């Protein structure tokens, strides 16, 4: 049997695919568009690009073979390619300016692929500023996304450019893509801007004075009768509300029952403890800074939800919404 020529003897290839023997008694081969190939490609920036390969394409083959014995062999040698690359790298090492030219070539190629506006879209490196330059202290235009609140909002004249267009005025032919970019930046700075949310305009209300709010909180909703001192009425810290559990109405709660079962001296002791605790709380509140109205409203809402008093919660949600800026 003839052996496929494998080149000069004595040198092993770097890649060898050897199918030594395939024996088939009878085979019918019907091939439509079969391609096989091997190629070797090497590149160093755009200084060097070389390739070598062989391809076989079977458009249409239909044959029958009997008593078949076949062999196949694929060989790739990299010595020559490695030698060429070594010479290129040696040349680049001796002439480093070749790399700069290669970068220019790559930039030109990218510009040709992306189109003529690519240069404007790509970020360009700005020249380094001296340390004493005040612009060197300037904050970045777009801070990173995160908890950083970023630089101060733009001056008012920026917002005046964002008013709703008047149909009687001539149309603004600014680039809509730039408008979107500016809008995104503006949303990031002030999500409650009224120019961006015109339907919210006019809904801002004055904040309720703190003393008035606390008084209303103590009294509860106007349409709810005062039951704080009634027997059987639950404290705000209780977990059950008689409005939601009618079966509990009129029954002393578990805490009251526990108190009644305690001996008299123990009840006196507990009472003194609670009084001391209230005194400590009062002194602590005097030392600590006063909480902001927003924190107070949030605390009230949490308290209302904890009590599961739907009506009181609804009232307090309205109060909280009134306190939010921009509503």
């Amino acid at each position: 049997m003839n052996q496929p020529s494998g080149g000069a003897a004595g040198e092993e290839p770097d890649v060898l695919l050897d199918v030594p023997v395939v024996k088939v008694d009878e085979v019918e081969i019907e091939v439509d568009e079969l391609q096989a190939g091997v190629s070797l490609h090497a590149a160093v920036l755009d200084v060097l690009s070389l390739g070598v390969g062989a391809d076989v394409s079977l458009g249409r083959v239909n044959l029958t073979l009997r008593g078949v014995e076949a062999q196949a062999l694929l060989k790739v040698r990299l010595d020559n390619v490695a030698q060429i690359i070594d010479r290129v790298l040696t040349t680049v090492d001796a002439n480093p300016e070749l790399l700069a030219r290669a970068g220019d070539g790559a930039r030109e190629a990218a510009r040709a692929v992306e189109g003529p506006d690519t240069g404007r879209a790509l970020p360009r490196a700005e020249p380094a500023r001296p340390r004493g330059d005040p612009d060197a202290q300037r904050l970045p235009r777009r801070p990173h996304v995160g908890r950083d609140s970023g630089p101060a909002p733009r001056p008012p004249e920026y917002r005046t450019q964002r008013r709703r267009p008047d149909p009687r005025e001539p149309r603004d032919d600014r680039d809509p893509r730039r408008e979107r970019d500016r809008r995104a930046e503006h949303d990031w700075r002030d999500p409650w801007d009224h120019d961006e949310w015109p339907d919210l305009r006019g809904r801002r209300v004055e904040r309720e004075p703190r003393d008035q709010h606390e008084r209303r909180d103590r009294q509860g909703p106007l349409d709810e009768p005062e039951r704080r001192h009634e027997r059987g009425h639950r404290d705000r810290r209780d977990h059950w509300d008689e409005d939601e559990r009618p079966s509990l109405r009129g029954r002393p709660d578990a805490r009251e029952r526990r108190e009644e079962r305690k001996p008299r001296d123990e009840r006196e002791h507990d009472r003194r403890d609670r009084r001391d605790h209230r005194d400590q709380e009062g002194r602590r509140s005097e030392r600590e800074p006063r909480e902001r109205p927003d924190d107070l409203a949030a605390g009230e809402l949490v308290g209302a939800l904890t009590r599961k008093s739907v009506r009181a919660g609804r009232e307090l949600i309205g109060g909280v919404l009134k306190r939010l800026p921009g509503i």
Partner: protein
Amino acid sequence: MREPDVEIGASVEADEVVFREKPDVEEQAGAAPEGESGARTERENLPRPAEVNVTYRDVRVSHRLSARLAEPEPEPEPDDNGEE
């Protein structure tokens, strides 16, 4: 002579071969930017071109397709003064 950088070879022996259709086969090999390629086929008991629906017996075909890059030019040797 230097060996090919890439080569594909195949060899087939068959007691009988019958072509049901006229085969449509293409092959190509090459090297860039400079190089050379070649193909070599050895056939026994198989005429060129082969006829359709004819039974050929004791057929042997060996084919080799290869390509290689142009040999790099030898580096110039420095002269006695150390200059190229």
